């Protein structure tokens, strides 16, 4: 067992003594979060945003309210979903014209909701009042889980995949093959080392970003850690699988880029795919980064528990094991 820990420790030292890699993996997320924090500091939006379920009857007080030009109306697929957005301050008011009498909801802590309510009441429309409560979720709150996921993905895929290919090319793997260490043992040590590094760097990035921009965290830290570690396990194992046989760094780099770029855009790091075409959503759901970001975002912005994100965690663990076992079976030292 001692040699297993020494293998892990050797890899850890290699990581933290390479100041370039260490710096980049820790500094990059801060730069992004700082940039976004600055960009979203002064919100220049002058419109109210409201969601409507159904259509108001023409020439009624409600249709007058619906026609106010400073309000941007978005069709609500369901009232529940709209209320969830209202809780997070993603919209200022929700109107359900299909209920009898029509109902509206505002967030009690939202000044914009208060103003919109005044406008609605001013029309004299016969509506029933409803309220929700919840803290505002800014873009930066939404972004942080994507950023943690993306940083983890780069660390997992390049940190393991690229390193293994380099080791194969320069003969480190050949040297290790000549010792009694087995492939599965060696690869497991790489995975455990990377999980440790990702755990630590994610904690630093999280704490640092929180100090810079006080983002929202509604769920449990332990639940978030379980999700992130499941994701790290899955993505690290994917890195191993990619690097199982390749001996060209250029090819490995290309392949890893082909894997990472679609995930950056389609796994929900920067923007939500809510309104995207169904086929695109299906493609995105096949990427291992998608469940990581989905689950961590649910925990952070909606206070979801581990049992609520169980499907995502199970997907990550199953995929990770498939990747690890396939990677070990296909692995070539030379």
């Amino acid at each position, binding site marked *: 067992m001692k040699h297993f820990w020494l293998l892990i420790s050797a890899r850890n030292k290699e990581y933290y003594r390479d100041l370039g890699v260490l710096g980049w993996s820790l500094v990059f997320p801060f730069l992004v979060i700082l940039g976004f924090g600055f960009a979203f500091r002064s919100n220049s939006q002058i419109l109210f945003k409201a969601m409507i379920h159904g259509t108001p009857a023409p020439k009624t007080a409600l249709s007058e309210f619906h026609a106010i030009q400073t309000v941007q109306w978005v069709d609500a697929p369901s009232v529940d979903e709209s209320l969830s957005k209202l809780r997070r301050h993603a919209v200022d008011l929700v109107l359900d014209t299909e209920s009898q009498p029509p109902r509206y909801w505002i967030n009690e802590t939202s000044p914009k909701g208060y103003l919109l309510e005044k406008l609605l009441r001013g029309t004299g429309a016969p509506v029933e009042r409803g309220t929700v409560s919840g803290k505002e979720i800014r873009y930066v709150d939404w972004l942080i889980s994507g950023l943690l996921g993306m940083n983890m993905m780069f660390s997992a895929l390049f940190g393991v995949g690229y390193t293994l290919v380099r080791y194969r090319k320069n003969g480190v793997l*050949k040297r290790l093959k*000549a010792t009694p260490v087995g492939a599965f043992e060696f690869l497991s040590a790489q995975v455990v080392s990377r999980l440790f590094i990702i755990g630590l760097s994610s904690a630093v990035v999280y704490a640092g970003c929180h100090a810079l921009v006080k983002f929202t965290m509604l769920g449990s830290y332990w639940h978030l850690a379980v999700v992130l570690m499941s994701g790290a396990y899955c993505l690290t194992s994917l890195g191993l699988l990619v690097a199982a046989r390749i001996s060209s760094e250029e090819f490995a780099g290309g392949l890893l880029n082909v894997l990472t770029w679609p995930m950056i855009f389609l796994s929900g790091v920067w923007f939500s795919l809510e309104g995207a075409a169904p086929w695109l959503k299906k493609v995105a759901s096949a990427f291992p980064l998608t469940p990581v970001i989905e689950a961590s975002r649910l925990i952070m912005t909606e206070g979801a528990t581990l049992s609520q994100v169980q499907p995502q965690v199970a997907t990550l663990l199953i995929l990770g094991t498939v990747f690890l076992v396939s990677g070990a079976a296909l692995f070539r030292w030379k």
Partner: protein
Amino acid sequence: MTPILEAKNLKKHFIQSRNRIQAVDGVDLKLQAGRCLGLLGPNGAGKTTTIEILEGIQDPTDGEIWFQGEKLGGPRSASMARYRERTGIQFQSTALPDYLKVREVLKLFQSLYSRRMDLDEVIALCHLGELLDRDSDRLSGGQRQRLLLALALVGDPDLIFLDEPTTGLDPQARRNFWDLVRTVRARGKTLLLTTHYMEEAHELCDEIAIMDRGRIVAQGTPEVLLKHHFEGNVIELPLDAFPRGEVPAVLPGKMRTFDGRLEVQSTSVNATLQALLASGAALDHIKVRSRTLEDLFLELTGKDLRT
């Protein structure tokens, strides 16, 4: 006596651009415990492939390897696992995990073996004491080779492979390394060494095996091989020692010209010298010497050792 290592009819071929290349073509080898065998051959003779098969790094296409009386199985077999425990390897060129100090590299590799040589002993043996806190990738050529030898020793192996261990070292570092190898040998270790340097083979090996075109073309002690393949001495003199540079058509002995020189393999130095004098040759720059392993190598492979 059962040899510590025996190779029986080892074969290995590669397919390259649809061509079949027979890198190793039926190699048989026997190495007795406590001996040092030098494997020599020109580039492309198949010696790196052979030694990598013997090290368990490559699988042979055909043939068997026996270690301490046990036939070795495939890469994941129990016999191969035991073999890896009992062998130490110094590769010709290898990298080590980045950013590790010499001490950390030694500890890491030592931990991979169940039987271990005491680390302080290895450090003293390979003169690494002053280098322990140095980054392993910031060593000179000689220091690096000493570290690589130490890594081959940390598992206290019975059999050690040294693949061209002194290539690229300056003469002093090479001689220092030879002293280390002699110390290792004195501890009863068995060595299999490949080298480009005849002097190194002479200094360190009990016997040598010469490879060419994937086969072993001669194996034995240097003395026996020389005796078996050559008779007499070599007489050398420059071609311009002859009047108008014209070399006599016939002289007593086997004649060969190369690099502006005439070489005569003679069983009777007296008779050859008299014939040379009779031809009018000036003998001011004549050399008379015994046959060397370099000559044997040339004789058997038709190539210079370092081409």
